[in-house]
């Protein structure tokens, strides 16, 4: 029943008021494209490069003149906005129009920022998007796993942090990266164990529980860092790191190769986890049971599904996944552990999961969107774009608010999410 409701909700056309507001937003974006970016661009072309040094195939650079490009894109957006407002379109064309206008806005923004400066390395922009999104994607998937079974996981930040800590210490002490990776996953699982114990067994409010576990992980790793890692840095906090592995053939595809198939093992693990979670949740018996438990535990119980066991399993699985994301921060990236090095990425992952409406693909998409805006802000800073650096640093966060408020709107969590189950 509830799945039908969800489908109905998705098909329902939007209200006239909301349609006009959104159309207005699209026209507004178009006007900014044309009037702000088009006219104010400095002299000179914007150059996008698509080839990294050492690539086998050379893709020619894209040279764009800011005036015509931005004004053209702006006109297109305004036109599409008017179409959007006039006709009551179905969902797919609605989304296509919105996506076109947004992409147009991003392109004209990049063209304006890069005009007359050094070439913008587009492949590197996408590659850093992927690598910096790894902890966000894994964290968001961990959230999906937990919440689909009805347990809220706000402790992703803590799972990342303890995972990063455990991975660095073990990889350093035993000189074995894979052992570090496994330990990282287990450390995430450890926080999950606490989450499960308090949420499932003792029925503590899960949102606040998650926050407390984050504080606990921060305090514990911070304390151990000062007490053990600083004095024994060489032995306990100097791990090796995973090197990038280029996948043969695929890695040589122009543009896509370096972005998708030339990275550390963590990116490939992420692909596998995305596939497993998506297929597992929506195309297997296991997934059906998990979702039943998350939506309607009483009904699931009557047909013989063990609600508590299902929840336990998913919470632990989620912890392991987030722990791998944490391990990336140390042994997949920089090596040594630093205090509070997860820097709020667990919360971004949480937001990405809600943003993606509790679906694995949606969550991954939202994580990538965040990673992309971060990478854009990075690149713009390096090019010397005429935007103050502190404002640039806000960009990913503002973009997320705009996307959530303007495009996504109200998501629907699993019905029993956060409700402890008490057998009647």
């Amino acid at each position, binding site marked *: 029943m509830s799945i039908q409701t969800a489908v109905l909700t998705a098909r329902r056309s939007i209200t006239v008021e909301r349609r006009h507001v959104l159309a207005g937003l699209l026209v507004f974006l178009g006007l900014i494209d044309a009037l702000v970016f088009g006219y104010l661009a400095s002299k000179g072309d914007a150059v996008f490069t698509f080839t990294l040094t050492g690539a086998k195939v050379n893709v020619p650079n894209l040279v764009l003149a800011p005036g015509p490009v931005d004004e053209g894109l702006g006109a297109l957006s305004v036109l599409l906005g008017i179409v959007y407002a006039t006709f009551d379109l179905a969902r797919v064309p609605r989304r296509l129009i919105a996506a076109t206008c947004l992409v147009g806005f991003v392109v004209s923004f990049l063209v304006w920022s890069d005009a007359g400066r050094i070439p913008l*390395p587009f492949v*590197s922009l996408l590659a850093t998007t992927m690598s910096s999104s790894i902890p966000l994607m894994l964290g968001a998937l961990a959230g999906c796993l937990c919440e689909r079974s009805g347990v809220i996981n706000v402790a992703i930040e803590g799972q990342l942090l303890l995972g990063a800590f455990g991975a660095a210490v073990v990889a350093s002490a035993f000189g074995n990266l894979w052992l570090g990776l496994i330990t990282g996953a287990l450390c995430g699982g450890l926080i999950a164990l606490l989450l499960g114990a308090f949420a499932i067994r003792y029925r503590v409010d899960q949102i606040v529980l998650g926050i407390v576990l984050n504080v606990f992980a921060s305090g514990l790793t911070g304390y151990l860092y000062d007490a053990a890692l600083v004095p024994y840095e060489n032995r306990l906090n100097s791990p090796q790191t995973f090197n990038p592995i280029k996948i043969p053939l695929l890695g040589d595809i122009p543009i896509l190769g370096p972005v998708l198939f030339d990275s550390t093992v963590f990116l490939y693990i992420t692909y596998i986890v995305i596939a497993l979670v998506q297929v597992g949740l929506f195309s297997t018996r296991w997934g059906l049971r998990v979702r039943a438990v998350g939506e309607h535990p009483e009904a699931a119980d009557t047909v013989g599904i063990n609600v508590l066991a299902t929840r336990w399993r998913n919470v632990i699985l989620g912890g392991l996944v987030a722990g791998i994301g944490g391990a990336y921060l140390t042994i997949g990236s*920089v090596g040594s552990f*630093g205090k509070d090095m997860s820097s709020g*990425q667990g919360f971004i992952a949480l937001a990405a999961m809600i943003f993606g409406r509790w679906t694995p693909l949606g969550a991954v998409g939202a994580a990538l969107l965040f990673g992309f805006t971060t990478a854009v802000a990075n690149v713009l800073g390096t090019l010397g774009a*005429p935007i103050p*650096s502190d404002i640039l640093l806000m960009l990913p966060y503002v973009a997320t608010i705009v996307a959530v408020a303007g495009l996504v709107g109200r998501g629907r969590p699993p019905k029993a999410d956060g409700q402890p189950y008490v057998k009647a």
Partner: protein
Amino acid sequence: MQEAAAANSNVTVKYLQSTTQSDYVPNINQFISQKCGIIVTVGFLMGTATQNAAKANPNQKFAIVDYTYSPAIKNVDALVFDTVQDGFLGGYLAAGMSKTHKVATFGGMKLPTVTIYMDGFWDGVQYYNKQHHANVQVLGWNEQTQNGSFTGDFTNQTKGETLTQTFISEGADVIFPVAGNVGLGAAKAVQTADSSGQNVNMEWVDTDGCISAPQYCKYFITSVEKGIQSAVKTAVLAAASGTFKGGNYIGTLANGGVTLAPFHDFQSKVPAALQSELNQVKQGIISGKIPTPTKSPV
């Protein structure tokens, strides 16, 4: 400070970490009530708290790093470092070592103690361009617009890595991160680029990188050092031996308070001509013939 303890066995070190700003005053008071010989505070955020404590306790000796008072306070040894000077040398060296004619710098947060390095680095590259009629570009900072690249904090090392990857893909081959531990992310990116056959190196900041991050020593052309340790050590030992005199101390190239670290692995790779030019530039800065402007003066 630990060095001071090693040099004088009568010195014992106690250390307090503040979790919020409101902790500064009680933290200082704790040490005052424990009758410490000298209390060393760090950073501009503690400037006012230290000043008030020093005025309320005129017999207690203090030292503060990265902050000065005008007029100077008698019982506070205010230690600042004119890192625009060695940043200048770092920039000149980077420009000389760059094959791609692009060098890059980035900061953790846009704070004056960070941007003063970046100003110096930028100045140094411009001076190199003028001397050699070259056109080496600085990515990530522009002294005139005071705008550039920052990671936004001093903890997110992954961000330092991605930022450095971006610089490298834009063609920069000498990277100068001014971001504390986030610089380790930069070093990792340099290492990755190196293992894929690109010739990229970097300069470390604050301390000698070959000592504080030895695993990356072979990528460090040099380190743009800020002699906090030795200045604090001097202050502590002076307090212990009764020769303490407060006032403002400015670390410069002339007094050795700021300096370029040894080249270590690069001793043979930095051309002799460039090394001697660096010496001349250094003398020029010391004598004042070469100006080192900055918008974040100490």
